[in-house]
């Protein structure tokens, strides 16, 4: 497992070797704070909390993380570098985990760069820091699951656009399942079914974190979704 480190390092610094990373970070920060203030009506709520910020996260991630994750494997396949990578003494799982962790660390740094919001709520009022802390924790965990799904879809193809589209569809589906507007449409189904379906949603499991709760089953959901997606990535790449 020690081979994870060089792969991680190469991949993580790789983000910053191209301008894409900076463009991504800037747009991500603008969009996530913009949506918080405008669509989330941060000021109108007159509450010093980051609820409106966290509510937007799953929607933003659907597109932004798919954009980061689409190149994970598709790019290696297209340029042929995976031939180099897999003829080096590296196990497929080490490469998959190394690259995944690098992407996750990159996204996590983007999430943490939203820290000025903390000063804003701190300045405007007296927020409850507990839910903000767990909210960030849940947000990063959830981002990990989004990215793991992208890792899998990216391994399926050498075309980044295809990878992007498939991962958006899957991730959007997993967001929709927990969205009240969508679940109301499923009114014709027995309530138990709707509940069961919404259990597969990011939003359902993220809500606890935004309310300051770290629930075991939410942790299990995010971690197992990531683990399963990564396992599928390994299986696809091992051919």
């Amino acid at each position, binding site marked *: 497992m020690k*081979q994870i*480190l*060089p*792969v991680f*390092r*190469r991949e993580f*610094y*790789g983000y910053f*070797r*191209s301008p894409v990373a900076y463009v991504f970070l800037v747009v991500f920060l603008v969009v996530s704070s913009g949506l918080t203030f405008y669509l989330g009506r941060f000021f109108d709520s007159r509450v010093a909390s980051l609820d409106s910020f966290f509510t937007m996260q799953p929607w933003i991630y659907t597109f932004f993380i798919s954009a980061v994750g689409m190149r994970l494997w598709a790019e290696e396949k297209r*340029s*042929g*570098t995976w*031939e*180099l990578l*897999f*003829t*080096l*003494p*590296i*196990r497929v799982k080490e490469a998959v985990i190394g690259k995944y962790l690098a992407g996750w660390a990159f996204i996590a740094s983007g999430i943490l760069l939203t820290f000025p919001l903390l000063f804003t709520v701190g300045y405007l009022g007296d927020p409850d820091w507990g839910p903000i802390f767990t909210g960030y924790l849940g947000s990063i965990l959830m981002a990990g699951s989004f990215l793991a799904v992208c890792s899998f879809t990216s391994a399926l193809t050498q075309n980044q656009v295809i990878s992007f589209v498939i991962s958006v569809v899957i991730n959007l589906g997993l967001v929709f399942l927990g969205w009240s507007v969508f679940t109301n449409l499923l009114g014709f189904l027995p309530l138990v079914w709707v509940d069961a379906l919404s259990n597969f949603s990011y939003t359902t499991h993220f809500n606890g974190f935004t309310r300051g709760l770290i629930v075991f089953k939410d942790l299990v959901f995010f971690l197992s979704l990531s683990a399963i997606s990564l396992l599928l990535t390994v299986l696809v790449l091992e*051919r």
Partner: protein
Amino acid sequence: MIEVQSLHKQYGSINAVNGVNFEVNRGEILGFLGPNGAGKSTTMKMITGFIRPTSGTVLVDNIDVQKHPVSVKERIGYMPESGPVYGEMTVEEFLTFIAEVRGFDDATTKEDQIDRVCDLCRLNSVRHQSIETLSKGYKQRVGFAQAVLHDPPVLILDEPTDGLDPNQKKEVRKIIKSMAKDKVVILSTHILEEVSALCTRVIIIAKGQVIADESPESLLQRNKYFNALKLETEDVDLETVKQGLKDLPEVAAAEINDGSLEVFPKNKQSIETLVLKVCRENNWHISKFEKRPVSLDEVFWELTT
């Protein structure tokens, strides 16, 4: 050192590699020849463990690639075709990554190895340039440098001189030759002169099968014109000369073609002194006497079409 046993690879209904067998030992430089799509690259990729064979085994140092891919990959330096490397990295960063993956953890040994291959492949002037900005020749050398960084006992090079100019080709061949002494080198090429210049052994692959496995010299002997002579005369009739020569025990056949006489030896032996002697004894005046130049091209063409 490397044993390939009845290797098969099937893509759908296509047999890309269809029962390839061979063995290579230290000190050999084995050239893979074959038309495009013959299965050279696929065979190499199976030896390196990048592609899983449909059936058959590859043993490197008696280790099965499929059972212990990582230990085999530690022993192999591989340069993929058209050298795909991470373009956005600088040469130094890329080689550092390779060194770390190859297990050189300690900073000084890592530096030493990188210095060594940069000297060997003359990369010092571009060490801090990103790879995508380099010319094809330099990119190829970066690909070669990463393959030899850990001084592997086995070197597998897929068209190492492809796309290089003649000087660069010469240089890459020189490097390969200088490294080959205690290694196994397998290289694929479709440049036949490269085989004669570099290889101690040639395997010709066509349609996924080995159709020849011998030294470049003996391959050359398969040419029907090997040691054959071509004569033209001034005063005597070619027919007379033909009659006089064709019954010599060393001569297999003599034919008249386009006003010249072609004499083919038995057992590919050299017959020029003998023929000259016979001509002098008979007082035949020879106006043209030449040994036909033979090349691998004709042999290759005959074997693969």
